[in-house]
Structure formats: structure tokens, C-alpha cells
């Protein structure tokens, strides 16, 4: 099996797509990330990430309706695929495993001083 390594930004994007279930397209994802992470996301970076994720098979897209505020251009809605879900879970599991592996004392910063 291919490595299912997710980059940090990719993971954030996937999670945002998950949160926005059914409503995830360029602008909404961008806003979601910006709101939750309080950082700016450029359209270019986001689109690149979306494209990469789609080509990796973690996301799939459907073409939505064109709306007046978009001057009739269609939206591209993203949903997470099974493969994507696996990748996200793998990411979370590795993290959790690593969290668990930290000896409690390492985080008990008060006692160390």
C-alpha cells in the first residue's frame, strides 16, 4: 500500500472538508480554516492542496450549481473518500500513539525546574 502520509496543511484541509460535509467548496473551506486556525489561507495554496488530495484519491469532487454571486461559475464540492478517511484516521492514530508514548513526566514541566 502506498504511504498515506498527510502533510499538515493537507490534513487541515481534509478535516475542514469533513466538517463542512456536503458544503465543502473552495471559499467555504478557506473560511472554515481561517476561522478555526485564525490564519490566512491563499486561494492558490488551498486549490493546490485540494487538487493534490483529489489526485491522491483522498477527496472526490462533484460539480455544483452556478450561483449569481459567483457570476454563474459552478462550485466544486468535495467529500472525503474511504481512502481519505483511512488516511485521516492513520494520521490521527499515529499522533495518538505518539501522544501516548510520551512519558507523563516529560510533560510535567513544573517538576523539572
Amino acid at each position: 500500500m502506498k504511504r498515506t502520509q498527510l502533510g499538515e496543511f493537507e490534513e487541515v484541509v481534509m478535516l475542514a472538508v469533513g466538517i463542512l460535509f456536503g458544503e465543502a467548496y473552495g471559499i467555504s473551506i478557506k473560511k472554515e480554516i481561517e476561522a478555526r486556525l485564525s490564519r490566512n489561507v491563499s486561494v492558490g495554496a488551498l486549490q493546490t492542496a485540494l487538487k493534490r488530495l483529489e489526485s491522491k484519491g483522498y477527496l472526490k469532487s462533484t460539480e455544483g450549481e452556478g450561483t449569481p454571486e459567483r457570476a454563474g461559475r459552478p462550485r466544486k464540492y468535495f467529500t472525503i473518500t474511504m481512502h481519505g478517511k483511512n488516511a485521516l484516521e492513520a494520521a490521527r492514530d499515529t499522533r495518538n500513539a505518539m501522544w501516548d508514548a510520551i512519558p507523563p513526566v516529560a510533560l510535567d514541566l513544573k517538576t523539572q525546574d
Partner: protein
Amino acid sequence: MEGQGPQPPRLLMRIFLWFCHEELRKYIEGDLIELYRERVEMLGRFKANGRFIIDVCLLFRPGIIGFSKNTYTSNPFGMYKNHVKVGVRNLWKDRFYTTINLFGLSIGLSFSYLVLLLVNYEFSFENFYEEKDHIYRLGVHYNIGGQEDSYSNVPRPMGPAFKEEFPEVVEYTRVAGVNGLSTHTSNLKYDEQYFLSEKIFVADSSFFNVFDTRLIRGEKSTVLNRPYTIVLSERLAKTIFGEDDPIGQEIETVEDERKFEVTGIFEDVPANTHLPYDAIISFYNYYDDEINTFWYGRHVYTYIRLQSPGQAERLMEKYPAFYEKYMASDYEEVNGKADLILQPLKDIHLKSDLTWEANKNGNLTGVLILLAIGFFLVVIAEVNYLNLSLARSSLRKKEISVRKVIGATKSNISGQFVVETMLFTALAFCVSVVIVRLVYAEFLSLSGVDVLPFATEHVLIFGLLTFGLGLLVSIYPSVILSGVRLVEGLKGRSKKSRASGRLQRMLVIFQFTISTIVILFTFVVKNQLDYVTHKDLGFDKENLLVFELEDSVLLKRGGLLREQIQELAGVKATSLAYNRPGVDLNHLILNVENEGEISSFGSQFMGVDHAFQNTVGLELVEGRAFIKGSEADAEVAVMINETAKAKFGWQDGAEGKRLFVGRDENGNPDYLTTIGVFKDFNIGSLHSDIEPIVLFFVPSEGDQLLVRLSSDNQETVVAQVNQMLSDYNPKIPAKHHLLESELDRLYQDESRLSKSMTYLSALTIIISVLGFVGLLSFSIAQREKEIGIRKVLGARVSSVTMLFYKDLLVLILIAQVIAVPVNYFISQKWLNSFQYQSFPGLFDFAIVLVAIVLLSLGTMAFQIVRVAFMNPAKVIKDD
């Protein structure tokens, strides 16, 4: 929907849409618009625009840009390979046409390449000077007593005065040949050895500040600032001193036995300059101080360096005031006027042909004519190719149709033809490079220049030009052929399209027009050259030998020598003079007395002895010649030519008329008296008209020894005279030449042009006829069946022949009708540079035209006759 809400900047959006990958385009565009509108509401238009710009910039990244990995990329290599393969097969299939075409095109290419080299060389003059556009040469245009002349040089005080008067003039330098203004040949003596150099000049110490030649030894500012110093070129220094250090050594000029100290060495000057120099002698004290102050006569070449190139015009504007201040008084005295000529250094070689040029300059007209012909040569050859491929197009319709059925697009088929043409062009290019290599030596001797044939940049430029032209030529057939109608092509109906037939005909007319013009013009040039070299100049130029006496030992004994030579067998007459026909003469201002009044006239003058008239063969029309030994003649007598007589207003008889020379110490006027008038003769080139000439009597003196031979025994006489001369052990041997060949050299440009024109016109006609032959054999092949049927029905050989000839004849005649007036126009322009012109008669022209027709038709006769005599059964039996 678009109208609702604000729109992001249109241009940026278009840029984005242009680079964005197609799949993503509409979605991202939508996102951008949506975002933009939101921002406009929240932040205002200005900020929204700013953000938008940032967004678009950030979108310019690999994942978004159109040529991303996910596009389908075809591999067209296989297709090109197939194109080349089919191309090669096609060229091979039509070997005959290919050879004809290839031959024509490569000859055309190679000769235009040579022409290009030559033209490039001619235009490269002075380019090696870094600041060439700052340097100007001064010249003057005189009008003295109605005698006008333009000099390439100016009075000596002019340069210094220019620098003083005009802030624009940064520096000036005066230059003169070592042995007189335009005579820059001298023998240098070092260590008892003599070195002849033809490029020795005397120049001001500022010479190297005006001309940016680099000094290898010595400092620019100091090398020439002492009297009797000399700076040598690297080449000359090496010849004279070998490996020794030349600095501080002394060399001597043999003619006047002056010694010069070598103070510097400069980098060799390339040949492509109007003023090539191998040695520069310091101007300081070289001449008498007095003559450096003359505002009239005693000219030197003067170059100035301007602060910036654009200031020449300002100088011209300021000149009248300068003239008033310095020169007007001198010139009013002689009823004259001097206008300034400012020549940019770059223009001198091709555009300047003034009196007393330091070297023979190039000829712009000749260069342009060659350029035009070189260009047409290629065009004609390319037209051949175009024509043949159009003719062959009907044969290829089937192939194209099949390709189309299989799925070739129009551009595929165009591509096929472009590849084929390029293949052919590449082949022709290679062959032409070989041809250039073969004829290069001959070309060099003809053109008299030295250029590297295979300088990479030349070949590169030429290659580019060739392929550019090839591409251009491939456009038409590829467009025509890719537009073939499928069904028509498959059915094999080879109806020749009318448009392409008309085009073919026009192209043939075009070719023949050009080659006819070139041939007729060559004829005009040859005719004129023949005319000027054979025209009666007013004296007998054949069998006249000239010995130039430069050595002082010989000069002193001139009179004696003349008499000794006179005694030789085969010598008819001899004369000793200071001037001879065929070289530029100096001018003089004469105060002519006419009915008591004195007016100034400019005139050329010669100093000759009593035998000059007989030796040269002048015809006396009035009065008498100089009498041998007459002291009175030597003091007060002059002879004039008819033009002078007419100009001076002495129509009622010139004998006894006087020229005022000045007053003696007692205040009495001195006069020269005219004793005779001789028939006008052309002293120099027939480019110019005959000017007034005055002969002065200078007995037993002169550096030109003219020897009139009684018959063609030139060699023995030369040998005897040389023996006689060498008995005196001169340091500088006397040069000798036939006056006739020297006079012929005045038309060097024309004879060179005529020679190259002969080659080129032969080539143009050969290439045109070749194309014609190809075309014809093609149309014959197409009409073989028709001819067969005609013959079966009873057509005679002559009528079949006529069938083909009729068409061709019309085309050639149309071409000639166009060519004749065009040629007339061009020829007139060219002939205008001659005072004496000769235009070939109508009859001669007609002969040339008929010859062209006969030649073209004759070349095709073989093919036509073959088809006319063919056995009709052979072709008809196929069906």
C-alpha cells in the same frame, strides 16, 4: 448573471484564466469572484483589488498552471520521423526535379552568401573604432572663379582653429601622406636595410586621441609630441626590428634622408578602414612653419572628434561665422568661396569620392547593385522550388487524400510539406557551403577583399536567412495542398486549379523579368566600360610608358636621362614633366586679363617640358608649343586647353592674352602670356568633365619621365631604361607602368562590377532556365496522353512543338516588356555618375533580348522535340 455585483479587474482575471489549468479554471474563477465580492462589501473596492492581485499571484504555482502533469502529452516524434521519411522518398522519386532544384538553389544560395560577405565587409568599414560616430573628417567645397571642386582635405590652420572656436570639437588631428598629401608610400631604412611601406602618414600628436587605436608601447599623449618621432604598427615593427626592442631606435626615410626616433608601437589596424596606417610620423616640425598658416592650398586631411555624435549639424550652422572670421578675406581676393564638408568617419568609405582621397574608396552603388542581385538570385531559385512543388501538387493529391481519410488534420499535412521543404533547404544549404568553399579563392581575387568565409556568425546568419526563406516558401504549397478536397483527390481527378496555374505563370514572368533586367544591365555596364576605356581621350594613350623618378640622384639628372633614353631604338619621343595624365591634378587660381579687366578663375595646372606636347600627342589648335631651351618661355609663357580658352572668355583668339601674376619689387605688374592652345584632352577619369588646364614650361625638370614607344617593344625598352637608371645606384628604384593600364585602373570599380555582374547574370539566367525546364518537363508529362491523341489524329511535329512554345514565348515576352523600361531606369541612374555616357543602341538591345529568347527556348527544345517525335502508341496503349 454577470452584471450582478462588482467584477474583479478584467485584465488580471484574463491573465489568470490564461495560465490556469483548464480543469480547474471555472471553479477557481468562481471562487475568486465570490471572494472578491465579499471583500468588496467588507473591505471596499481598493483593498479587495489588492487582495485579488495577491491571490492571483499566489495562484501562479505548478499545481494550478495549465501545463500540469495531468494533461495528455502526445509524442509527435514518430510523426516527424514519418514526415522526414516520406520527404526523402518524395525527393528521391522525383530525382530529376530535385536535382534541378537543388542545383539552382544551392548555386543561388552560395553566390548570395558570397555577396552577403562582400556587402557585410563593405559596410564594416571603421567599425573597429569604438567611438567611430564621434569622428568626422573635414572637407571643403571651393567655388573659385566658377571652378567648383570638393576636397577631402582642408587648409592646415583649419583644424587648430576649429578646436579653438568650437567647444564641441574635443580634439583634432591633421594627417598627410609622408611623400605628399595622398602619397603615403615610403622606404624606411634601418641598419642598411630598406623596408617599403605603403601606409606611412604624418600626423599631429593628438592622432591617437582622435582615433582610438590602442598603443602597445608608449603613451598616447607623449608618443608624437616631439619632432622627428615615429610610431609603428606591431606588424611593421616586427618586420623591421624582428625580436629587438624598437623603442629609441632610429629609422630613416630614404626619400628625404630624415631620421626618426621610434617612440611607440600601436596595434595593427585592420584593412577595413579608409585610412589604413602602418606608421605615423610626428607632424611637429615636419613641414615649414609658414605653410602651416596658409588658408589656401597646402591641404591636409583633418579629422575632428566631437563631444557627442549629434553635434555635426551645429558645427555646420556655426561655420559661416567661422568663415567670415578666418577665411573670407583670403577668398574674396580670388573671387571665391569655401564651404565646409563634414563627413562622418563611417560614411567615408562608401559615400565619399572627393578630390585627393587618401585611398580609393568603395562604391555604394556597386555594393547595393550586388546586394540586390544576390537577393534576387536566391529569390529566383526559391521561386523555382515553389513552382515545381506547385506543379507536382496534382500528383500528390491522392497521397494527401489518403492521409486525410486516415485522420490527418490540415495542420498535419501542412507540417509534412514544411518538413519536406526544410529537408530540401538543408540539403541545398550543405551543397552551397561546399560550393562557397570551392569558389572562394576566385571570389577573393575578384572582390579584392579579405574576409573569413566560415566565420561562425556569418554561417549562422546565413543559415537562419536560408531557413527563414525556406519556411516562407513552404507556406504556399502547404496551404494549397492541405486544402485538397478529399473526394476529388481520391477520385484522381487532377483538374489543375486555375489560381495555382496563374500563380505559376506569374512566378515565371517574375523570374524572367529579373534575369532579363540583370542581363540587360550587365550589358549596359559592359558597354559603358568599353566606351570609357576605348574613347578617344584627345591624346594617344597607347604605347606610352611612365617612369616615376623618386630618388634624388635620378631627379637631379632627369634632363640628361631623358636625352639618353631618347637615343634608344624603339623610342619615339620622351618628355620630363611634373604631372602626367591619369592622376589628380592640383588647382591654381589664375588672374585672367580680358579686355583690360582682371577676373579670377580656378584651373588645373601641369608643369611640363618642351617635348610634352609631342610625346603625349596633343594637338595644337592655335599658336605654338614651348620652344626647347627658351628662357623667355620658361619665365612668361603658358599653354592652355580649349576649355580654358572658352572659360576665360578669349573666344577671339587666346594667343598673346595674359595672366596677371603679381608685382615685382619695383611695383610693375608681372604677366604670363599665352602662346598656344591645344585641343581638349581627358586628363583623368571620364566620370568628370574636362576642366581648364594651364601648362607651364619647366625645362629639364620633373619626376615623371614619359616615354613614347614606336611599337610594341615595351619589354626591351623597359629593360634598357632600367639598366640605365640603375647605373646611378638610386636608393629608390624607379617605378614604371603603361599609361594605358593606369588609365584603365580609373575604372576599377566599374570593371569589378562588370565582372561580377557577368557571373551573376549568367547565374540568374541559368537558374531561371533550369526552373523552366523542370516546369516544362512536368507539364509535358501531364500532357503526354493528349499529345499522343493529337498525333493519332494527325497533328504534325511542328504543331505539337508550337503548342508548347506558344505558352512559353508569351511568358518570356511579357517578362521582357516589363524588364526593358525598368532596366532603362536603373541604367540611367547608374550612368549618371559618368560625364561621358554611352547607352547601347536599340539594335544591340534587341539582339540581347532575342538571344535570351533563343537560349531559353533552345534549352527546352530537347524535351519538346522528344515529345513531338514520340510514338503515340506508347502512351495511349496504357489505357
